[in-house]
């Protein structure tokens, strides 16, 4: 996973002090931009990617060749439009697409950080991206936008920097990880660490990859991104390239074949230790925790307009969690809007074709720009 691919990146001018108390010495941040920054800097939008996403939000991915993860939302004539906006998306620290992460060389040893990479938080990811904004000379943003873990970062950004964005859009997300969220992540981490090829975390130096463990982690997580109705609609109990049951343990069912494919294609592009680090950051996330458990205190003084969006079939970060966030924003006196959209596709709906979401983001952004 330690690709020599030349991702666009910069090294932050200062060390990053982490929530754990550890220091990340001058981390590298990989990022992509689209469009041109307006002379007054007022058209900048920072997009945050989800757990397994990266900075290739709109253009085809240089390693997989697949379209950007949010090409339906970002691009010419789309709601987030390089003709109008300066669009920035950075790979999170702890990631594996060019930003400082477990596969990067540890400056102290010259060898990959691997399991010595510090445990980070969502706030650490956001502080790194704020430092990137500083380095690029970008002040107040038009908007910060993200879905899932990207939405957590958007909310965290608004909490840490209450005046730095005019608008916040947080989609299919949560202000804290629930016991169920943590439980699913723990299954994934245990699958990775149980793989003998994980080598106690030092698989890169051993020239091995814990493919089986990482693939199982991805398969388990992928189920949480879908819905029962969506799976039934797409696969039902249909068999994969066969007419009868094998009475064995091949992928008899289409849904098994699909999950195996998801698992195998994931291990080709993702670092197992990054998966450990980022899922841990999500599990540690609780926006209210530094504010004596008061979520509305986390948003005190926020000047942005907030739009929260949930999907009715999302059981990973359900509507009730978005409503809890809206309730806190309202109590904090913030300008908050909330919509629950309908889709059969579960948590992943925001990444799929969602015309209602596109309409909402387009209208919301244009209104903020006109204000």
């Amino acid at each position, binding site marked *: 996973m330690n690709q020599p691919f030349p991702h666009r990146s910069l090294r932050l001018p200062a060390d990053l002090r982490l929530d754990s108390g550890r220091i990340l010495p001058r981390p590298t941040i990989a990022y992509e931009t689209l469009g041109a920054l307006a002379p007054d800097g007022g058209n900048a939008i920072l997009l945050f990617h989800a757990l397994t996403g990266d900075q290739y939000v709109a253009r085809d991915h240089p390693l997989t060749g697949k379209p950007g993860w949010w090409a339906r939302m970002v691009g010419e004539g789309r709601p987030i439009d390089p003709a109008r906006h300066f669009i920035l998306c950075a790979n999170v620290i702890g990631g594996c697409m060019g930003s400082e992460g477990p596969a990067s060389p540890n400056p102290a040893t010259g060898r990959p950080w691997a399991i010595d990479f510090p445990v980070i938080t969502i706030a650490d990811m956001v502080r790194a991206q704020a430092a990137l904004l500083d380095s690029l000379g970008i002040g107040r943003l038009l908007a910060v936008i993200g879905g899932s873990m990207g939405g957590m970062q958007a909310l965290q950004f608004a909490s840490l920097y209450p005046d730095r964005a005019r608008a916040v859009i947080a989609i299919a997300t949560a202000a804290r990880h629930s016991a169920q969220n943590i439980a699913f992540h723990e299954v994934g981490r245990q699958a990775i660490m149980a793989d003998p090829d994980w080598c106690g975390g030092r698989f890169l130096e051993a020239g091995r990859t814990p493919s089986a463990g990482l693939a199982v982690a991805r398969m388990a997580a992928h189920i949480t991104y879908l819905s029962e109705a969506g799976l039934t609609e797409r696969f039902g109990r249909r068999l994969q390239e066969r007419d009868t049951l094998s009475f064995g343990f091949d992928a008899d069912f289409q849904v098994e074949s699909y999950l195996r494919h998801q698992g195998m294609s994931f291990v080709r592009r993702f670092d197992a230790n990054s998966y450990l680090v980022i899922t841990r950051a999500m599990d540690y996330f609780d926006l209210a925790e530094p504010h004596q458990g008061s979520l509305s205190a986390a948003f005190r003084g926020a000047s942005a307009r907030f739009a929260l969006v949930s999907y009715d079939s999302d059981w990973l970060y359900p509507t009730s969690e978005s409503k809890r966030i809206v309730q806190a924003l309202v*109590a904090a006196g913030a300008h908050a809007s909330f*919509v629950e959209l309908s889709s059969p596709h579960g948590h992943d709906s925001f990444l799929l074709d969602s015309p209602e979401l596109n309409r909402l983001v387009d209208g919301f952004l244009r209104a903020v720009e006109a204000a």
Partner: protein
Amino acid sequence: MNGLPFRLAAVADLIPRGATVLDVGCSDGRLLRHLRDAKGVDGRGIELDPARVSAALAHGLSVVQGDADSDLADFPSRSVDYAILSETLQAMRAPARVLDELLRIGRRAIVSFPNFGHWRVRLDLLLGGRMPVTPGLPEPWFETENIHLCTIRDFRALARARGAAILSETWLAGTRRVRVHPNMRADHAILLLGSADGR
């Protein structure tokens, strides 16, 4: 009246410049938009239909998708000058509780509703012997969302029972204002309520 329907314009007339407002059941935010543009009002809304919420957002309004029966509890006490409920009280499962919430959230509450004491309604029932279907209440009983209809006198009694003071009443018939015998002659009423203790 800036394209505002007559009855909403009559509600808007009650709101002073610069007030803060929560519009419960705000649709696409037409009243809030008018109040913001014409009177500098800082408004929020609640609306059940997601497409209407999206439309309101596109007009720069802050609207939360929700239901007056269950989601008003999220709004802090005395957080706005005016809590408005336009023509939806009669569709609430628990109108008395919704009224309590309006009076808790707003320093004042404005409630507009169709008057079931209107002479057409009375006549329809008296002569036809069936549930009234009138221009103001056009759906038959089995299709209407209006499950808690009331007369102006009924609503006054409820407001007083809930500890509210009636500060003003606006009586409408079609696109005219009514001056006398409102419970018989007005097809709609708009009541401005405050706390009985005058706060």
